[in-house]
């Protein structure tokens, strides 16, 4: 999907149809010209993911880099293979498979086996993307679907965390609990500064808030993501988490903890904003992020799992077609007709 978010397209369309536009061009929508292309957008997103990858390598050693490479290579191979089978043009180099691979790798624990990484990538691309018809037709975020499949397939391996700076540095990796698991099962809170920098146990790419923020802000600067989506998602998490906190500060963590721990940042900046699997209408986007953020916090605090970002996004993905259909803005000049 080459479209950017609705808001951006509207402003572009408005500027294109300024006083200089004299010729009347009759065509079907979309009525704007855009020099953006899928590869350009995708490669920018890849660039934006680099800080998170770099942070994961810094904190978890070269094992993290290996997993990223395996995931990216497996995603590209699966895409190539599926497109050959489906006799479709091979678009491996447009970068979307690279992003899926990087995002999937960033959600895995650093000690995850290489074969599992391959399997998750294969599932993400083949079932999550190509079986739905390829880029632009997938209902669910492929990387998250791959991660969800891994969660169901290897429930133990995917929750075996190592503390940072031990993999590749010490003889034995020291297993450790994630801040969210510490909070949920032992009632311990991790210092916010550690969470912000990323010096905690967890999935490779989701530990360092600052690296993800860098990438996310870069994407925002390039205009590829709509501020509504990440900020709405994080805001909703903060409000719902804050409500719990105000009700019982001894039992529930502060809203900032919610924002900095686990996959909240990675999900909000790179997965909620997926152009294919998020709504296009402004109202639909608000509903999408507010419900998604609320659900993530509710799963974290009341559900059986320590982390709820993945399932909240996947769950809201399923509603995107419905949201797009029922929140369509009124077309200018449209006459309200009675629904039969």
């Amino acid at each position, binding site marked *: 999907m080459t479209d950017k978010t609705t808001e951006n397209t509207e402003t572009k369309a408005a500027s294109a149809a300024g006083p200089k536009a004299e010729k009347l061009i009759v065509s079907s929508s979309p009525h704007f010209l855009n020099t953006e292309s899928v590869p350009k957008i995708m490669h920018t997103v890849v660039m934006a993911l680099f800080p998170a990858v770099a942070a994961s390598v810094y904190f978890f050693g070269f094992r993290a880099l290996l997993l990223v490479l395996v995931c990216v290579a497996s995603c590209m191979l699966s895409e190539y293979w599926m497109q050959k089978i489906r006799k479709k043009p091979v678009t491996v180099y447009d970068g979307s498979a690279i992003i899926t691979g990087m995002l999937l790798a960033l959600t895995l624990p650093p000690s995850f086996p290489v074969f599992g990484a391959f399997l998750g990538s294969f599932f993400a691309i083949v079932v999550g993307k190509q079986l739905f018809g390829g880029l632009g037709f997938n209902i669910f975020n492929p990387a998250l679907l791959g991660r969800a499949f891994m969660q*169901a397939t*290897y429930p133990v391996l995917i929750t075996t965390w190592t503390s940072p700076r031990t993999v590749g540095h010490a003889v034995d990796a020291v297993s450790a609990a994630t801040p969210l698991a510490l909070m949920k099962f032992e009632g311990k809170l991790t210092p916010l500064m550690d969470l912000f920098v990323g010096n905690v146990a967890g999935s490779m790419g989701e530990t360092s808030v600052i690296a993800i923020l860098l990438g996310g802000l870069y994407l925002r600067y390039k205009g590829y993501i709509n501020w509504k989506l990440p900020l709405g998602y994080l805001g909703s998490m903060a409000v719902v988490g804050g409500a719990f906190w105000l009700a019982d500060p001894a039992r529930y963590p502060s809203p900032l903890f919610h924002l900095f721990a686990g996959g909240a940042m990675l999900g909000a900046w790179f997965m909620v904003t997926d152009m294919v699997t998020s709504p296009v209408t402004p109202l639909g986007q608000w509903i999408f992020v507010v419900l998604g953020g609320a659900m993530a916090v509710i799963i974290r605090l009341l559900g059986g799992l320590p982390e709820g970002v993945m399932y909240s996004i996947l769950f809201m993905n399923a509603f995107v077609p419905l949201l797009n259909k029922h929140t369509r803005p009124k077309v200018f000049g449209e006459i309200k007709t009675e629904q039969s």
Partner: protein
Amino acid sequence: MVDNTPTLWYEFKKGLWQDIPPFRLVLGTCPTLAVTNSVINGVAMGLATLFVLICSNLIVSAIRKYVASQVRIALYVVIIALFVTLADMFLAAMFPPISKALGPYVPLIVVNCILLGRAEGFAQKNPVMPSLMDALGIGIGFTLSLAVMGGIREMLGFGSFVNFKLLGEWFEPWIVMILPAGAFLVFGGLVALVNYISHRKTAAGTNP
């Protein structure tokens, strides 16, 4: 039907591929999804269904001329329920572990749409011999389908085949495959595969 008097062999054969119940007719999917987490469970379920199917098809076909059409469905259900009860009690008496593993799904054969489907769609319109062959074919096709489903899921979910450890210690079992989600994934994959093969077959048959 192309042939007006299909042979008995045809009635048997069609259940094995052309009308193979879970994949082509998409009937009887409940046991197909629910009990196929190992080969043994799948085969036991298939054989129990095969037994009930043969008996009910025979009786429905034998009495087809004496049944008032208004009450036929109720009658078929009573006939099927009789044999399901027999099968359930037999399993519970002779193979308690399997009976326990299959749980409520043996009594639930009563509502398996294959049975009513064959009684309504075939046995009530055909003589006894073709009905028997139909029941054999469909029942064996169903059993094979469940065995294949169970084989794939057991292999990936436990690393074994008929409780025999097939894959070595290096293999990390895919827990998802013994969960309901794995059943849906394997089922979808097999339906796609069967459709793909039969499309290839028909394409090759019409355009030689």
